């Protein structure tokens, strides 16, 4: 946990359907905090590698690393625009395609989703390709950046490596700052969101954020979060990989 303006806690756990087959966790996440004048900024990326793709854990890892690195923040307090972020997603996609070529595999073998949150001092930008969810607390209630509409099964989930990136790219901003943020892969979606009420399940998020807030700063909650993601109550409901990144404003 980084002890600064933002407390960030992130863990990933391999789904039981994967552990059974000896496969690695294909999720990845990355984040960046900033010092000095930019301490209010926070960038978080999360990616879910396609289960059927042979190198998707490489794709997911590379996508998060490259995305977080490429998001630029400036003195102006201005967030990257939709055009900025889309063009960065394009660049990250090209990195994946180049890596596929280097590994001599089809781009499809590095397929992954990609989620992004850029928190600035006065506003927040979200972007997403594929499934997974971004949840934030706006001071009154938990909200999703994009509601994951139940897809007709035939629409395969979008991946960064797909050809129609502009079409499956979502971007959204809110013009206030936030105090709590969670980014997760779809392995947790049905446990953390209430699909009949179409909103985040507050009883899922509140205790998580609360635990981070009350923990002594030196506490390392990472082990506990990892244990939570691997716990039987989670694994009875999902056998997919699951990643959860939590950020709490500490001031």
């Amino acid at each position: 946990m980084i002890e600064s303006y933002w407390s960030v806690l992130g863990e990933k756990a391999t789904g039981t359907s994967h552990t059974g087959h000896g496969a690695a966790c294909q999720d990845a996440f990355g984040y960046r905090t900033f010092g000095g004048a930019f301490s209010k900024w926070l960038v978080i990326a999360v990616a879910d590698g396609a289960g059927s793709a042979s190198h998707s854990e490489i794709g997911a890892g590379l996508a998060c690393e490259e995305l977080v690195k490429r998001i630029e923040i400036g003195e102006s307090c201005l967030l990257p625009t939709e055009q900025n972020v889309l063009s960065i997603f394009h660049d990250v996609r090209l990195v994946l395609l180049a890596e596929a070529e280097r590994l001599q595999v089809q781009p499809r073998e590095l397929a992954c989703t990609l989620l992004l949150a850029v928190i600035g001092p006065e506003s927040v930008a979200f972007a997403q390709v594929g499934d997974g969810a971004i949840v934030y607390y706006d001071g009154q209630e938990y909200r999703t950046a994009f509601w994951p509409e139940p897809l007709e099964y035939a629409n395969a989930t979008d991946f960064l490596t797909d050809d129609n990136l502009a079409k499956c790219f979502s971007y959204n901003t809110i013009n206030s700052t936030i105090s709590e943020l969670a980014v997760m892969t779809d392995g947790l979606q049905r446990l953390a969101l209430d699909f009949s009420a179409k909103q985040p399940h507050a009883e899922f998020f509140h205790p998580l954020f609360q635990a981070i807030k009350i923990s002594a700063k030196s506490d390392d909650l990472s082990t506990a979060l990892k244990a939570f993601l691997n716990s039987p109550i989670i694994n009875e409901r999902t056998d997919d990989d699951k990643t959860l990144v939590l950020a709490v404003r500490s001031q």
Partner: protein
Amino acid sequence: MSEQFPFADVKLASNPEPRCPCVLLVDVSGSMAEIVGESGKDLGYTVLQDGQTYRAVSGGKSRIDLVNDGLRHYQADVTTDALAAQRVEVSVITFGNSVETVTPFVSAHEFVPPALVANGETMMGAAIIQAIDAVTVRKQQYKQNALHYYRPWIFMITDGKPTDAWQAAAAKVQEGERNKSFAFFAVGVEGADFEILKQISVRQPLALKGYSFKEMFEWLSVSQRSVSHSNPGQEDQVKLVAPTGWASL
């Protein structure tokens, strides 16, 4: 808040499980009553009749008996998997002299395998249309109840040729496959008209090796278990086990 575990108070959202519907479309025409195995097999016990002790032997198993055994095997196998047992939904529709929905859609853990009896014609065309209608209605029910679901499967088993008009059904299968409304699989047992099956099914019809119904239903169970473990919308990525153990292309 637990001292030992900081996240003990976290409560999970209780969303219903996504559904994975499958229609088993079974030919019960007269030829399915043909005895194909185990005739005269020693059943391992004796019966006492009119003061005489007789060794009991089997009267043999017909094709439909083997399908019935396979259905029980399938049900037992799917339900060993806790998630699949809740997600897979089964309906059994038979076609002989008439088309009958023997089992309307039920979840795998509620599925009671029926004892099918063979007789009559092969009303395959009407049966296919009834199966397509059944999955269409089921999907509407899922949508009304905000349930997530997987692409339905229609899995047809036949040993003959249609005795009714099948061209309209073939057109509907092709349209449904094109729109990804369902996936249609055809398995032909010895005696099936593969030329017609090829015109009905977009996917290559599978020829059952001998009477390996048990292996076929085992494959069906394994396949649906893997589909039901994929996330809805991503089942195209699931790699199905090749049906080589029980079928030839």
